[in-house]
């Protein structure tokens, strides 16, 4: 009898622990269903861009060296850079750089004619200009814009004509550089996009050329002494979409999307029903035991 009682107790204990287990499983399930947030990060390319230009009319061709401070072995050499030459943007990791100029063909160990250093940040573009006359040659470093006002273009003017110390530049009738002096650079100006005539005016003479400035593009116009007089070089500093769409793109229909777990409610109902059944059963058992005990006792008393 005592042995049987132990079995019953064990069975009740089992029932209770199963109920507890079911309860904790349900709680855990609810917790995992709630978690699962998506993370998003900002794009940060590690690249910076440096561009070099020789804009000193009376300075002979040079070799331009670009050194990285962090990495002395890494260097870029542009050979035989003459007046009016502009390199493309060189992609470099962000960091500290120095630019040195030597006469074309001079040994790389010789002291540079001119040098300057700059810190460049990832995601930014820079233009290094060698400007002025040979006697007063200097390096100027510009941080180039990479964003335009919505629907507009940006343009700036570099005055590198020695023969015409002061020029006025207009584009589509709008003056974008007024009496700009030799070796000067305007800041970027926003203009409505279009294909217009750029006019460089010196006194009564005017040099015209057609310049297209698209929305979302950034340009530098360089006024140069050409073989046949004034010239305008149109550099495209950067370009983007002419029209920016709103928001993201709807590029999926969900056919391969992971489907989240369904509601735990039906399973919890099953567990609750089972628990009620088991508890009801054990209560009934207890009651029936109490009722039947005297009947069992009768023979022993007799």
């Amino acid at each position, binding site marked *: 009898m005592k042995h049987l009682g132990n079995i019953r107790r064990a069975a009740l204990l089992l*029932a209770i622990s*199963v109920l507890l287990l*079911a309860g904790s*499983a349900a709680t*855990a399930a609810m917790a995992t269903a709630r978690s699962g947030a*998506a993370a*998003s*990060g900002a*794009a*940060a*390319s*590690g690249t910076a861009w440096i*561009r070099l*230009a020789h804009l000193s009319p009376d300075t002979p061709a040079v070799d331009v060296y670009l050194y990285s401070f962090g990495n002395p072995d*890494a260097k*870029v050499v542009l*050979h035989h850079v003459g007046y009016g*030459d*502009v*390199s*493309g943007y060189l*992609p470099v*990791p962000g960091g500290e750089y120095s630019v040195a100029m030597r006469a074309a063909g001079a040994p790389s160990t010789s002291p540079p004619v001119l040098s300057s250093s700059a810190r460049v940040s990832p995601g930014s573009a820079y233009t290094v200009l060698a400007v002025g006359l040979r006697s007063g040659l200097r390096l100027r470093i510009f941080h180039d814009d*990479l964003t*335009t006002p919505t629907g507009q273009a940006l343009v700036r003017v570099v005055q590198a004509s020695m023969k015409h110390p002061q020029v006025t530049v207009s584009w589509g009738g709008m003056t974008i550089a007024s009496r700009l002096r030799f070796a000067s650079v305007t800041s970027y100006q926003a203009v409505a996009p279009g294909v217009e005539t750029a006019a460089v005016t010196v006194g009564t003479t005017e040099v015209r050329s057609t310049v*297209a400035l698209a929305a979302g593009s950034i340009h530098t116009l360089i006024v140069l002494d050409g073989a046949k007089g004034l010239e305008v*070089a*149109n*550099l*495209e*500093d950067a*370009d*983007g*979409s002419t*029209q*920016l*769409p*709103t*928001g*993201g*793109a*709807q*590029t*999926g*229909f*969900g056919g*391969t999307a*992971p489907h*989240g777990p369904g509601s735990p409610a039906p*399973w*919890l109902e099953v*567990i609750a029903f*089972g628990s*009620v059944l*088991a508890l*009801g*059963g*054990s209560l009934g*058992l207890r009651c*029936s035991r109490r009722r039947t005990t005297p009947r069992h006792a009768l023979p022993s008393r007799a």
Partner: protein
Amino acid sequence: MTIRARWWAIIGAGLAVVIAGTCGLLLTRHGTGGLRPAPAASVATQPAFPAPTAPIVAAAPTGQPPPVARPTALTIPEIGVKTRLITLGLTAQGTVQVPPTTSVAGWYTRSPRPGAVGPAIILGHIDSYQGPGVFYRLVVLRPGDPIYVRRSDGSTVEFRVTGVQSYLKDHFPTQAVYGPTPDAELRLITCGGAFDSATGHYLSNIVVYATEIG
């Protein structure tokens, strides 16, 4: 069968139901997983220092860069993508158009042509209602993977992946994706992240950043 045996049967049945319910609950907690491959780590590469010499472009009087032909096809060997490119514009709502079918990608015609200065934009679907679309496996691309765009003049321009990013559409970085760059770049755009079955749209966009090489 005694009364007590009947009570025992009821307890047993109750326990069996509880155990079955618990098993059912635990087995259905993980969802169906979907077919999607695991996303690649989103890393932006540090580019190698450039080659010892770089091209010098003379600031020619006209200064206009040579025109670049229209893109016609896209190949991404790493994920088996080989598709022709259709053209895409803007919707009446000002959002970017997407290809009408999920098996082709499209070039956004108001972005620079691939190989010209600036970020060329190419969009493709991750999936249809039934299964994978042309950019289904875009998210597994890694920095350094090559991408080829063929153009109408028969030339091909090669790009290398520099990074893969996921953005919530509500916080899409339009300037970073569509805005000006000083070099020739490429952006591949598709969907990703959680799917909202109420609206029928994914909540995020996957953007692959790439730069022209050579």
